[in-house]
């Protein structure tokens, strides 16, 4: 249905297009009634509906009317402008009209999807359409300003996601800064033994990529470093990176371990981060043999010299290359980049938070990550799965969903635990031939070859008990339970509570946002989901972009993910960054503030209000002056301007007043 009217000359000719969005909108908004309503609004010459306005035929509807001169301004009532404003602006521009003679009415997210009653929905939709129509008459043609894009990219976080993104970009010839806060890249993946479902060893597939990073001339690798300052905007970020002193000259150290062997401490005396505390390291150390860069680091919190200034400093003498420099100080690097990829990863759930599982209270209760190290040939026990008493366990219980799918801790599913629990079950059985019990709520194995892996485990005589574990304790009732850990859980398949005595418990801890996630997101000016995961621009259509242009997400910092998903997303993030850089420029939204010199009294009210120092006082003209390139278009100064001399493109007082009148013009 559609109607076309002539218009009195001079007056704007507005085209209104109402979208059904399949039935997403039309089920709660009477589209035809709305078209009728729009037709009778002032200056509306064309009023149409269409199933999917965002589709090509939908856009062509608009373009035809523009070309035919039936209309010179466009209002589309469909989804959120955050979703398709860009699409329709392109369409308008495509028909040789200024893209800013366009306004969108959000009748899906803000109406049909949130309104129960169709009549009410229709009324609300009409109000929003009326508002857009009133407003559009006041729109004027605007030009986007172009800003060139700096060709370099910053990647924060050197786990598998950061590594993959870095290599992808570097291979395309882009210069990349990879910043990692640990002394080595590799992240969590480097700690794993085998990877599901293929059971190929993590190191075998990761370490080549790590050394590739080291070798690639396009990648500047800054480990033991943190981003401390972010300024500027898409295409032109100014970054400050703090390089913590490792007291070893990276360019000289060859990773020969001589200094470490020479250390005054003959044995390790500090919990080894890489082995998640299962072993000790010395104050001077290399995290693990494949560390990248393969450079020693001195931990000044535990080094005798730094604590007492009384160390004999054998390490210094031991180093032939004189790489050790105890006077090294923290260094601030300032760089410019066009795009940023955040790959800051995750942390595992702290099992102490579920006291009823006895982690930290009873011996032989381990987290999955600890067991990963245990089963790892290069791990603290050289790959042996052993109890505290050195014996191999005869029975092992693996508890799923620790810190996942639980109202007391995290509501969400961590997505990887079922699969890695199966993997650990397999490895433990392989190493010890122990009886392994998996306690699960649901077995979640979506993914290529995942279900098959589960199938395989079922045939390896691993026990599966469907039910959340109630408690783990040393409270024994029968002689055979003596000296064991008793797992109490309801077996929901046979409908009874079971007590299973085991020698060792593995708590399959879930994934959580890093504790510093909130600082990081503020630093980069992006949002977080409730759980602390970085928020993507759109869950489906913009999963690696953020609401801050030029900042992209890769890996588990955006939500729980397994390795394949992380790598895939890292590739996507790299591609987004590449697209931005290869375009070479960004077009800034023209919604900036501007000043009417004749009206400015030079009262200076606005100047102090701009957080971007875009406003200055022109001492010759004695009025305020705005630097359009610095203005980000918040409009704070506009609201403050006492004489209305300041206005904001696309959000002038007039336009907003008319929009208000519009929404209040009820049918």
């Amino acid at each position, binding site marked *: 249905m559609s109607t076309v009217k002539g218009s009195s000359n001079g007056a704007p000719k507005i085209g209104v297009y109402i979208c059904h969005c399949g039935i997403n909108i039309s089920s709660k908004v009477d589209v035809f009634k709305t078209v009728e309503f729009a037709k009778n609004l002032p200056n509306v010459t064309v009023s149409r509906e269409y199933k999917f306005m965002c589709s090509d035929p939908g856009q062509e509807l608009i373009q035809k009317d523009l070309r035919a001169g039936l209309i010179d301004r466009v209002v589309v009532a469909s989804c959120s402008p955050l979703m398709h404003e860009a699409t329709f602006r392109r369409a308008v521009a495509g028909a040789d009209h200024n893209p800013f003679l366009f306004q969108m009415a959000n009748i899906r997210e803000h109406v049909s999807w949130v309104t129960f009653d169709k009549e009410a929905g229709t009324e609300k939709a009409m109000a929003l359409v009326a508002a857009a129509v009133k407003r559009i008459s006041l729109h004027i043609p605007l030009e986007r300003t172009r800003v060139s894009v700096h060709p370099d990219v910053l990647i924060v976080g050197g786990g598998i996601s950061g590594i993959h993104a870095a290599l992808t970009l570097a291979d395309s010839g882009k210069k990349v800064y990879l910043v990692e806060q640990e002394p080595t890249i590799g992240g969590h993946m480097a700690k794993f033994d085998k990877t599901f479902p293929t059971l190929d060893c993590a190191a075998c597939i990761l370490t080549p990529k790590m050394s590739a990073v080291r070798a690639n001339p396009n990648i500047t690798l800054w480990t033991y470093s943190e981003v401390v300052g972010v300024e500027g905007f898409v295409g032109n970020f100014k970054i400050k990176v703090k390089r913590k002193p490792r007291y070893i000259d990276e360019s000289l150290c060859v990773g020969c371990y001589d200094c470490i062997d020479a250390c005054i401490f003959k044995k390790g005396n500090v919990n080894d981060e890489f082995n998640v505390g299962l072993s000790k390291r010395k104050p001077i150390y290399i995290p693990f043999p494949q560390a990248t860069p393969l450079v020693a680091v001195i931990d000044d919190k535990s080094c005798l010299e730094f604590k007492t200034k009384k160390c004999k400093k054998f390490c210094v003498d031991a180093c032939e290359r004189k790489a050790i420099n105890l006077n090294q100080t923290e260094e601030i690097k300032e760089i410019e980049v066009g795009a940023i990829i955040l790959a800051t990863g995750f942390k595992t759930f702290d099992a102490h938070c579920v006291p009823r599982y006895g982690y930290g209270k009873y011996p032989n209760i381990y987290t999955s990550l600890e067991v990963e190290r245990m089963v790892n040939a290069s791990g603290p026990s050289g790959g042996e799965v052993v109890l505290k008493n050195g014996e191999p366990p005869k029975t092992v219980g693996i508890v799923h969903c620790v810190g996942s799918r639980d109202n007391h801790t995290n509501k969400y599913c961590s997505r990887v635990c079922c699969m890695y629990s199966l993997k650990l079950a397999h490895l433990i059985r392989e190493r010890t031939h122990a009886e392994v019990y998996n306690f699960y709520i649901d077995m979640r194995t979506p993914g290529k070859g995942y279900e098959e892996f589960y199938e395989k485990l079922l045939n390896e005589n691993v026990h599966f008990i469907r039910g959340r574990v109630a408690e783990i304790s040393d409270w024994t009732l029968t002689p055979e339970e003596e000296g064991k850990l008793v797992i109490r859980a309801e077996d929901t398949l046979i409908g009874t509570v079971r007590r299973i005595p085991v020698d060792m418990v593995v708590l399959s801890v879930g994934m959580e946002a890093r504790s510093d996630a909130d600082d990081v997101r503020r630093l980069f000016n992006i949002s977080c989901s409730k759980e602390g995961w970085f928020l993507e621009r759109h869950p489906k259509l913009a999963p690696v972009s953020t609401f801050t242009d030029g900042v992209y997400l890769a890996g588990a910092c955006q939500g729980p993910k397994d390795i394949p998903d992380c790598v895939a997303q890292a590739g996507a993030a790299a591609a987004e960054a590449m697209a931005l850089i290869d375009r070479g420029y960004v077009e800034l939204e023209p919604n900036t503030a501007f000043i009417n010199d004749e009206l400015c009294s030079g009262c200076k009210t606005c100047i102090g209000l701009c957080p971007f120092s875009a406003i200055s006082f022109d001492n010759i003209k004695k009025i305020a002056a705005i630097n359009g390139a610095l203005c980000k278009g918040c409009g704070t100064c506009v609201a403050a301007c006492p004489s209305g001399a300041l206005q904001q493109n696309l959000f002038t007082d007039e336009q907003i*007043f008319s929009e208000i009148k519009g929404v209040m013009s009820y049918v």
Partner: protein
Amino acid sequence: MSDNKSEEKRFEPKIVAFFCNWCTYTAADLAGTARMTYSPNVRVVRIMCSGRLDPQFVLAALRDGADGVLIGGCHPGDCHYQEGNYKAIRRFRLLKKLLKSMGIDDARVRLEWIAASEGDKVQKVINEMTETVRKLGPLDLEPKAWKLIRKTQIELPKAPQIALGGVS
């Protein structure tokens, strides 16, 4: 609503909302994507930042027939433009003071910090706001402006005889 006879009489307040583009408007979109049904009485006007909110807009909305105004911005410290929401809260505080002194129940104007992830808060706040204003009843500024003129024709009570008698 008309599908329910008993509710036909119920007063449906009109509320104008000013939502900042980056947090609250996005949260409202999220509420939509999550299909969180809420009361249809609120009409959203999008501004880039709560710092753009000129108190004039609030009064204009009331003058144009709104019974309440809802303002939504990013949580303190989260402003996409760093400090816009701080300017908003300063103005809002003084505006509330003015409205109070003008005899308008300041519950009719509400400011909420709603982050992009808080779709449920959008639902909650809008429902609450609708109920609050429903309880307060219609503000009805615009029509009243005209009624006032008619009112001027109402006669005052006659004064007692003696009053001017003494004068004459």
